[in-house]
């Protein structure tokens, strides 16, 4: 299949969903974009064909299949994932795991030819026995405390099984690492945007970032051309956490591990937008991914890890200090 003419996207409220839709609309081939979400995307009003579907609804798969068939959708981008960890674990599970199951059922019924999943290298999980560079073959071990990560590991397992049963559908899984850039915003960015960044005393792991532009470019390429398989989307190079904080001119607050985990438990419960305590293992152990496969498929990234970080820092500073 060459360039698909009709592309459906779930999760238009997420950053990837919304930005990808805008990019595809701007594409010169005159693509038609079908949006599926629970809320009407006002920014894209009038430019996309919007269908309101609640993926947590038990009959969502039938309804979605009907829409996909009616719109004769050729490619499907699944990005309906929470980008913020919430205390509402049941809803998260309903939306992410069961919602994805509904999406897969619908895609199978409508015989969608290409399926792109927005995943994350966070799914490898921070583990003390990770190799320095995780390749796409490495098992997804997630993190026992990070529920959203656990749901998404389940989604990838579901998709892998589904892909073997539907060999005529080209399945692409894109795993970006932490995204940085002028417009991207999630709980990781919020953590780094604070004047003081809490870190773990005695740990200084290597981190990597991908710039939002490189990330979107890969998503666009995977949607429009044939790139079956799993790809890590990362910038070149790694930076120690201490350097990341120093480059931003911020302060780090190193806290001893046991105290840290206890303290961090409460803000997360109090819905301040802080990630759950287990998340901070991502600032403790290595979970750097090998981007070679992604670079070969989608081209050399425009930004290295360092440049992606500086791009984020400079944009944020201008915004705050002007």
């Amino acid at each position: 299949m060459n360039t698909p003419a009709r592309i459906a996207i779930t999760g238009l409220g997420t950053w990837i969903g919304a930005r990808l839709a805008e990019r595809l609309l701007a594409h010169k081939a005159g693509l038609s974009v079908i949006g599926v979400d629970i809320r009407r995307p006002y920014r894209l009003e009038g430019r996309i064909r919007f269908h309101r579907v609640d993926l947590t609804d038990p009959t969502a798969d039938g309804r979605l299949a009907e829409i996909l068939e009616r719109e004769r959708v050729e490619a499907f981008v699944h990005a309906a994932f929470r980008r913020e960890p919430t205390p509402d674990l049941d809803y998260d599970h309903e939306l992410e795991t069961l919602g994805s199951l509904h999406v897969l059922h619908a895609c199978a019924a409508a015989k969608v030819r290409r399926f792109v999943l927005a995943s994350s290298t966070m799914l490898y999980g921070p583990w003390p026995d990770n190799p320095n560079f995780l390749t796409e073959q490495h098992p997804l071990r997630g993190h026992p405390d990070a529920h959203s990560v656990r749901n998404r590991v389940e989604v990838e397992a579901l998709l892998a099984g589904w892909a073997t049963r539907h060999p005529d559908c080209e399945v692409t899984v894109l795993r970006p690492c932490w995204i940085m850039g002028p417009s991207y915003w999630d709980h990781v960015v919020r953590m780094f945007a604070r004047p003081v960044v809490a870190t773990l005393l005695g740990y200084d792991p290597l981190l990597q970032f991908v710039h939002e532009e490189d990330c979107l470019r890969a998503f666009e390429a995977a949607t429009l051309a044939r790139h079956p398989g799993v790809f890590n989307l990362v910038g070149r190079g790694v930076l120690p956490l201490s350097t990341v904080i120093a480059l931003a001119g911020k302060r780090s607050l190193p806290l001893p591990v046991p105290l840290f985990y206890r303290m961090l438990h409460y803000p997360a419960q109090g819905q301040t937008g802080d990630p759950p305590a287990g998340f901070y293992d991502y600032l403790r152990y290595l979970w750097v991914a090998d981007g070679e496969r992604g670079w070969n498929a989608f081209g050399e990234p425009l930004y290295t890890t360092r440049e992606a970080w500086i791009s984020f820092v400079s944009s944020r500073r201008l915004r705050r200090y002007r």
Partner: protein
Amino acid sequence: MALGGEEEGGGGGELRRALDALRDEIRARLPLASVAGESGGAGPDWMELFDELRRRVSSLGMSERSGEVDEFGMDELVLRQAEPLLDFLMDRWWRVDVQGAKNVPPAGGCLLVANGSGLLPYDGLMISHALGRGQPLDARPRFLVADWLITLPFVQPYLARVGGVRACRENAQRLLARGRRVVAFPEGVKGAAKVFRERYRLKRFGRGGVVRVAIESGTPLVPVAVVGAEEAHPILFKIETVARIVGLPFIPVTPTFPALGPFGLVPLPSKWSVHFGQAIALDYLGSEAADDELLVSRLTEELRAQIQTMVEQALHERRSVWG
């Protein structure tokens, strides 16, 4: 193959300079600064105090790190600063006698396999320093470190910066594929945990990982015998119950540790010698030989026996532990 860190070079540096200039300008224009200047106010003092405290706590002597690390986290600046200390340890403290360094292939990757000893990877550091001294950073051998040590708080940031890499197949293969020299201690924790009366008796070489990696990557193996390191931290016996709680495999009891507290961590000044044996080429086997378990285990045992012989010969030659 160029490294990520090198490629960032120009663009990243320029951006950073521009960013620094911007930050200085913003600081100069901020009203906070002028207020502080007039009243000598408490606000900035607190900030300074906080900064100072944070620096003390978080950097512990690494305040001068450059922040430019290679893909495995080695920091050129830290390494250059540590050089005098490494030189001192090598020339004065342990008076390391290096023999057969010409057996190590001058270019391309190779896997140096040594007998391990002690909890802290002094032996890896010394082998790496013996070969990498006065050479560009890329030529410096990287030493593999057991994972419990390289993820230990406070130890982790330092070990990575001076060239330690977590011991696992993926890392070794990646380094060898980039033409780096890698120092491995295939005895693992068993080797580190040897008590004094078991000194210089090599333990089993795991499941033959080193040989398999060498076959798969087509790089030669260089057997290395380190003598003297066992006496630097002679382990009299091990405490295992308390160690579980702290997260260590065991707590060693040496003549000086824990009796002298932190001073007990200072290694004894035994006389060291490092012997590099003839390189063993395995590339004639072809990478599919790595799946031949019988062959791998036979080669592993041969390698172990060879290093054991080298160690015994070196022991025989040395006059005394301190000589």
